[in-house]
């Protein structure tokens, strides 16, 4: 019967991915406590026991969704080596992030709710540390681009990193809370860096 767990061979990776997708949406919509393994299984078209076959517990499932989602998001928003100005890098980051939110809304929603879940569930505090590592890699990279280009050469690397963190996360959270960008918020960030770029 197709609803009985454990498909064989090549199907296995695909099923695992389907479970992760369904779980991400379920966690993003209903939170960790409210998420139902039954609902996830039904969405994928498998038995709940099959979910536990791939992910031993709800906790493990949440952690794996976090890893997979963080990798995908931070990979795509981290500036490439050839970005030469913060203005260009930020424009790309905002565009990529908008595209992700449009095409894969559960990715943004899951990550936005993570820090609050981690506070409610101390067993996830390790995820907060991992989140900081992902953030730091991207924001430090942006900071060093901005310092090298002259846009933020009046700041130390730490100051530039924290400023960029506040700006990007502010833009991200406000959009998440309202399910729409605050009008002109992305534009204001780009206008500011464009001004800094041209005023050297």
């Amino acid at each position, binding site marked *: 019967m197709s609803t009985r767990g454990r498909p064989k061979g090549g199907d296995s990776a695909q099923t695992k991915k389907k479970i992760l997708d369904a779980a991400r949406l379920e966690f993003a919509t209903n*939170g960790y*406590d*409210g998420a139902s393994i039954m609902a996830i299984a039904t969405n994928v078209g498998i038995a709940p026991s099959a979910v536990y076959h791939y992910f031993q517990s709800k906790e493990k499932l949440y952690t794996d969704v976090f890893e997979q989602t963080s990798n995908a998001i931070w990979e795509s928003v981290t500036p490439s080596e050839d970005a030469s100005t913060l203005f260009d890098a930020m424009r790309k980051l905002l565009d990529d992030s908008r595209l992700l939110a449009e095409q894969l809304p559960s990715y943004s929603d899951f990550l*936005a*709710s993570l*820090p*609050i879940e981690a*506070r*409610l569930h101390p067993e996830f505090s390790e995820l*907060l540390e991992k*989140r*900081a590592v992902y953030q730091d890699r991207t924001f430090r990279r942006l900071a060093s681009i901005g310092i090298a280009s002259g846009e933020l050469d*009046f*700041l130390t690397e*730490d*100051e*530039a*990193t*924290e*400023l960029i*963190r*506040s*700006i*990007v*996360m*502010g*833009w*991200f*959270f*406000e959009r*998440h*809370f*309202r*399910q729409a960008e*605050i*009008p*002109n*918020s992305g*534009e*204001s*960030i780009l*206008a*500011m860096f464009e*001004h*800094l770029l041209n*005023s050297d």
Partner: protein
Amino acid sequence: MVDKRSSGRPTGKDSTKVRDAYIKAARVHFTENGYSNASMSTIAKDAGYTPTALRHHFPNKVELYSAVFAATANEVYPQIVRHLDSPSMAQAIEGSMANMHRISNNSPEYTYFLARVPSELRKFPELSDRVEVRENFTEFFYSSLIALGRKTGELESLTDELHIKFFRIAMQGWIYEGHYSQNVNLTTQTALVKLLQRL
């Protein structure tokens, strides 16, 4: 139901005291457990009074949440807004962020409660008209801050609209990210003041 005097409802000054105790306990529960997980009976127990008396003051969770929001905003907002009287926008940013930082150290449940409000509103839109003052305050604060910068000549580069949005995003982002990652520090404040001097 008959109003049984024995089940709570103290009068006058006592009543205010009881109400304050509920608000204090509820603030901790709402911040630590979120709106959906917070339980009226546990809050009542923590406050040291009966659930019946709690219901007398706050008939439901929406009412309780609104009251906690009002009490918290009344405490925090004036301490932020007074910095709009600073002689410069740089000082207003410095002062308001330092003050927010101080409150988050001394009474973390106040600022964390406020930082969580927008995420609760997303989940529970029925709360939104109860905390309307928040959006009004935010708009008032950032437009006044930019008007100050314009007046002192600190801001000339962009339009007022873009300045308002930029500083709002950066300062609100500092509040959200700092509270969510449990690391509120003043590096962003230093960076914003230096940025302002550069403009």
